[in-house]
């Protein structure tokens, strides 16, 4: 393998926009320190498969990866529990902007219809039961309700119509699983919805349907939900809310981050000292960790080095900080400087939330906030045009 091929191989293993399934399948995942998220939720579902759970966390904190790990764990347990897990990337199935009440029910319904057909084929291709045919017809009619621009003219309210789908979902579930099993639906990408009120309205109705149908649900939601006061969304999930904090890159957090890198990059190319530098510069944001490792390797390649050295990491980190610095206004810079001094943040409104959302500020939990390590040293150098 020549130098270019070696680096290209490294680029492939360090792909921050890669499919998280690859990381899970390749065994690149490492248990997070202090909170084995996937394990916790999977165990909870094991004993209460009809329960609903919310995972919130900052962008790039590894929510989708955790969701896939839950999916894998539930599949492993499926032989014993009879439960069947379904992963749905909502953004791949529908436009998030058009997500309103009933859409999650519809997506789950369509998935169960397809799965029931597969199960039937696997069991010898028998015809569906009358009950199942009726459920499929009802859900098709429900889908038609989404495909018209006309206002709802049904006998009850639109919300009633959504709630009426619960028995149909239950029929499909019963046709899929064994006697004691349940279906568990994992909804990804809802963290990209910016209209929190609309998301809450959707969840309020759709979760009721899943509860009535005795179907388990895990939802990935936006970080903003964890800063709402009062935290109304948590009530919808019976307080089953898991906050995926960023990993504080100190002590065991640092070891965890370095281990994540070590699984993907050989020490001959990325020695431990560089891994430690990358881990610290990432601030513990998993996607940033991979992105920084990758761009450090690019820096090394461009200057003809076969090994990623700390000065390559420093260059990559500076570029990372610059990208984060662009677009800040003077008030935001003042807020950031204050956080840099105090490690705290009082969330007063949109300005502070935007800093968290764009990962310029990281939340390590227990009231500890820090400026992203690549941005912090640049704050004194930023001049804002009047």
């Amino acid at each position, binding site marked *: 393998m*020549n130098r*270019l091929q070696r680096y290209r191989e490294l680029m492939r293993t360090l792909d921050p926009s890669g499919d998280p399934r690859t990381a899970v399948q390749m065994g690149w995942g490492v248990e997070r320190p202090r909170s084995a998220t996937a394990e916790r939720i999977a165990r909870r579902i094991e004993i209460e498969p009809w329960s609903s759970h919310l995972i919130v966390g900052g962008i790039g904190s590894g929510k989708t990866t955790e969701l896939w790990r839950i999916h894998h764990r539930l599949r492993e347990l499926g032989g014993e529990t009879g439960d069947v897990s379904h992963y749905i990337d909502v953004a791949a199935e529908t436009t998030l902007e058009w997500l309103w009440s009933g859409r999650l029910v519809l997506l789950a319904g369509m998935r169960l219809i397809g799965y029931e057909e597969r199960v039937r084929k696997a069991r010898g291709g028998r015809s569906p039961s009358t009950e199942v045919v009726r459920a499929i017809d009802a859900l098709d009619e429900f889908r038609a309700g989404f495909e018209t621009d006309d206002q709802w003219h049904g006998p009850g309210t639109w919300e009633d119509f959504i709630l009426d789908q619960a028995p149909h979902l239950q029929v499909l579930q019963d046709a899929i699983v064994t006697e004691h099993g349940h279906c568990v639906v994992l909804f990804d*990408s809802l963290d990209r919805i910016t209209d929190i009120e609309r998301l809450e309205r959707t969840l309020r109705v759709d979760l009721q349907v899943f509860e009535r149908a005795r179907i388990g649900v895990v939802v990935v939601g936006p970080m903003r939900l964890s800063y709402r006061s009062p935290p109304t969304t948590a009530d919808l999930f019976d307080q089953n809310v898991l906050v995926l904090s960023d990993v504080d890159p100190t002590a065991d957090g640092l070891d965890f981050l370095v281990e994540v890198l070590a699984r993907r990059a050989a020490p001959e190319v990325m020695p431990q000292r560089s891994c430690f530098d990358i881990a610290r510069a990432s601030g513990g944001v998993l996607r940033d960790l991979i992105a920084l490792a990758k761009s450090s390797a690019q820096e090394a390649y461009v200057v*003809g080095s076969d090994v990623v050295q700390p000065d390559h990491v420093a260059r990559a980190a500076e570029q990372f900080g610059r990208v984060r610095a662009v*677009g800040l206004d003077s008030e935001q810079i003042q807020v950031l400087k204050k956080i840099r001094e105090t490690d705290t943040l009082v969330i007063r409104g949109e300005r502070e939330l935007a800093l968290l959302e764009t990962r310029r500020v990281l939340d390590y939990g227990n009231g500890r906030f820090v400026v992203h390590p690549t941005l912090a040293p640049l704050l004194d150098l930023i001049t804002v045009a009047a």
Partner: protein
Amino acid sequence: MNISSLGRFELASRIALDETTGSWFVVGIEDEQRASLLAEDIESLVDYEIAIVQVADRELLVAASREHASRLVLLHATEGLESLHLDDVRSLLQRDHAAVLAVLPAELAHLASIAPHFASWAGNRVFLVEDDRFLDEEAREKRLEALRTHYGMSDEQFLAEVEFAELALEPDHAEWLVLLDRSDLLEARR
């Protein structure tokens, strides 16, 4: 504070290095002509034609990304970042080959606020292009030295082999020629 500027060829070499990953690059470029020049530089490194597709909205963006899924592609945002709804369609932009999203330089400052999820995906692969800037002299010399050592040839020997067509050109060779300001030989060999 500005986004880092890279010389066109240096940026092209970074993009080419990432060719077989699903990485997205966001590049501030003034106009279509400069986008074409960047595509040409990338072509010299990956050895196939880079499609340049104008995308005005999310549907066109997704369609173009899918149509050119098996190769590196340059997508030129003609109506601004907001019209692309990047966060909304991000799941549909997963690829096996790199993609370059070219936007007006002034728009780069708004990427994180308009599409924080997509911005996180792009990470620090956000650049401005400087037309005539090359690698700085120190980096250029280091890279040349690495190429000389790796292939066991001086610049003169390498140029002679290329001129007499004795060398099957690889991406490294294209880079070497451009570093020596002899991309004319690259054209001659096509």
